[in-house]
């Protein structure tokens, strides 16, 4: 049986998710139900969307350090403008997406380090979020609330949403010609340029798409929490980067995997629940999360070595 290298790269993230899930079920059999699964994975939906956004940026060899503050900003807009005057809210989101495209263009044209530009932007988004919501508050739009708390038959909403996100982004990134070009920019932007494509346009589109998914993450988050706060999603910056890497993505070379990224986000979310089921003292929960991250990455290394050995035989 021959597996493509893409499939092999997915095995470890998927296996670690299954293993973690099995451990959770073993410790808490009651989690093995519709409600249980929904509770376990509910918060994964906005994280998965943010991870996809980060993955898009990483596919063109950049890194977005403003992801957390941008999702917080989007959550604040969703809980205020989008709820009270939807037209204005949508306009703000369009402006934000256009800003993302502009950042992509500026980074490319001036050949700037993306880390620093997005670092600066993280202050900007954070500042705007504080201006919109100086103190926690706001209300989620009814439809966002409905969407996130919907109870489809048989499979919980969180799972349906994750599969949907993975399928849609898999199509965009791996199957569509835009996705191929985008990953091409990450792999070798010169050849893409020489083949007659506009790297500038491709990067702008990639950034805009990332902005769009981050906006969705903000809306989904507010749909779950019902209110927002300027600091609500700060940890998403690091979570999204970790999710992409956990899912088999790489920092350079346009090697990304949307399905892996969603699985990575689910794994990170589940790790939190797993630790609370283990009754680990809250002091050590963050540390144990770091340890889980290390173990999964070590497993990946072991598998890569195995793969190489098989190839050389």
């Amino acid at each position: 049986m021959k597996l493509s290298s893409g499939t092999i790269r997915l095995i470890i993230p998927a296996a670690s998710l299954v293993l973690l899930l099995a451990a959770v079920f073993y410790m808490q059999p009651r989690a093995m139900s519709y409600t249980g699964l929904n509770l376990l994975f509910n918060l994964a939906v906005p994280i998965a969307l943010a991870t996809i956004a980060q993955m898009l940026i990483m596919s063109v060899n950049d890194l977005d350090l403003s992801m957390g503050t941008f999702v917080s900003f989007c959550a604040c807009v969703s809980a205020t403008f989008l709820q009270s005057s939807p037209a204005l809210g949508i306009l703000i989101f369009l402006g934000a997406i256009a800003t993302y495209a502009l950042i992509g263009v500026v980074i490319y044209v001036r050949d700037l380090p993306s880390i620093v530009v997005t670092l600066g932007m993280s202050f900007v988004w954070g500042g705007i979020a504080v201006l919109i919501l100086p103190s926690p508050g706001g209300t989620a739009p009814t439809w966002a609330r409905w969407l996130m708390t919907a109870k489809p038959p048989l499979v919980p909403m969180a799972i349906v949403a994750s599969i949907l996100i993975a399928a849609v982004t898999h199509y965009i990134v791996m199957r569509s010609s835009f996705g191929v070009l985008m990953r091409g920019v990450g792999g070798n932007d010169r050849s893409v340029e020489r083949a007659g494509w506009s790297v500038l346009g491709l990067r702008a589109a990639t950034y805009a798409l990332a902005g769009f998914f981050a906006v969705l993450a903000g809306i989904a988050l507010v749909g779950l929490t019902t209110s927002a706060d300027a600091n609500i999603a700060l940890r998403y910056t690091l979570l999204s980067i970790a999710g992409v890497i956990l899912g088999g993505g790489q920092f350079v070379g346009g090697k990304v995997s949307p399905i892996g990224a969603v699985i990575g986000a689910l794994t990170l979310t589940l790790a939190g629940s797993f630790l609370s089921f283990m009754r680990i003292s809250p002091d050590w929960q963050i540390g144990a999360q770091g340890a889980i991250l290390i173990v999964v990455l070590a497993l990946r290394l072991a598998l890569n070595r195995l793969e190489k050995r098989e190839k050389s035989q």
Partner: protein
Amino acid sequence: MSLNRLLIAKPWIWSFAATITVWIVTVLFTGGASSFGLSQAALTFAAFSVVVGIGQMFVITLGPGNIDLSVPATMTLSGTLALKLMDVQDGMIVVGLLASIGIGLIIGIGNYVLIKALRIPPIIATLSMSFIVQSVAIWSNRGLRIKPPETLASFATSSLFGIPNVALVALILSIIAWVLLEKSIYGRWISAIGQSTFAARMAGIPVDGTRLVTYMLCAVLASVCGYLLASFSGGAALNMGSEYLLMSIAVVVIGGTAVAGGNSNIPGIWGASLFMFLVVSMLNTYGFGAGFRLILTGLIIIAVILLAGGRQSLR
């Protein structure tokens, strides 16, 4: 023409020019009354950014992808454990300092073991490490706020000839770092690795050893900074390092160190650290709210990097 060449050869001049502008604008607003106090506060707070910034700079010099995200956690753990160990006794000051250096060494080695042995990208390795370090800090802190020993606290908060002591410490560390970077073989090695790891390895440079030492150096500087900061602010707090994560990266880049690695400079870190503090205090004196202050800080960072980026394309 020669001015142009000077500006290209010494990128740190930009950050100092910006710093002086902001200082003048702020002092003008207050009618000159605050010039001494402002300068002292700027030197004090810039000193902490300088110490962590130098460590981060060495790591960034190693080339693309090298970055240390465990700086805030290291600062917190070192501050917490050192104060706990010293237990308000003056006699234990040196022991506390040595302990915090030891903590830095261990964390630095841990970081590099993860990077090397598990081949984890540095950004994720140091992130995982910082989670673990933060947990140890939470566990050992237990919400207690232990005061620093009397002598140490007064040393950290007082000044010599009008210059704050912490700024003097930062200055001494910067001079050592400058000698290391510009005059020692180690400095040549990290620049070579940053420019091309492959070529450096071919040239017989001990790449792994050099990288290990660099991550250790960064962690040690972060832990020394945590020790100083905890003594300065009268106790360690669990979130005391958090703002230094972005700060340490920002000062390095604004200071003119190439993010792609292989080219760094220390004076720029001073300029950038002073600049970052003065911008915030300028916006404060002009009475801006927290939101506007954040937005303007971000826009200024982007404006600086836009200007500085144009400089590189001149070459």
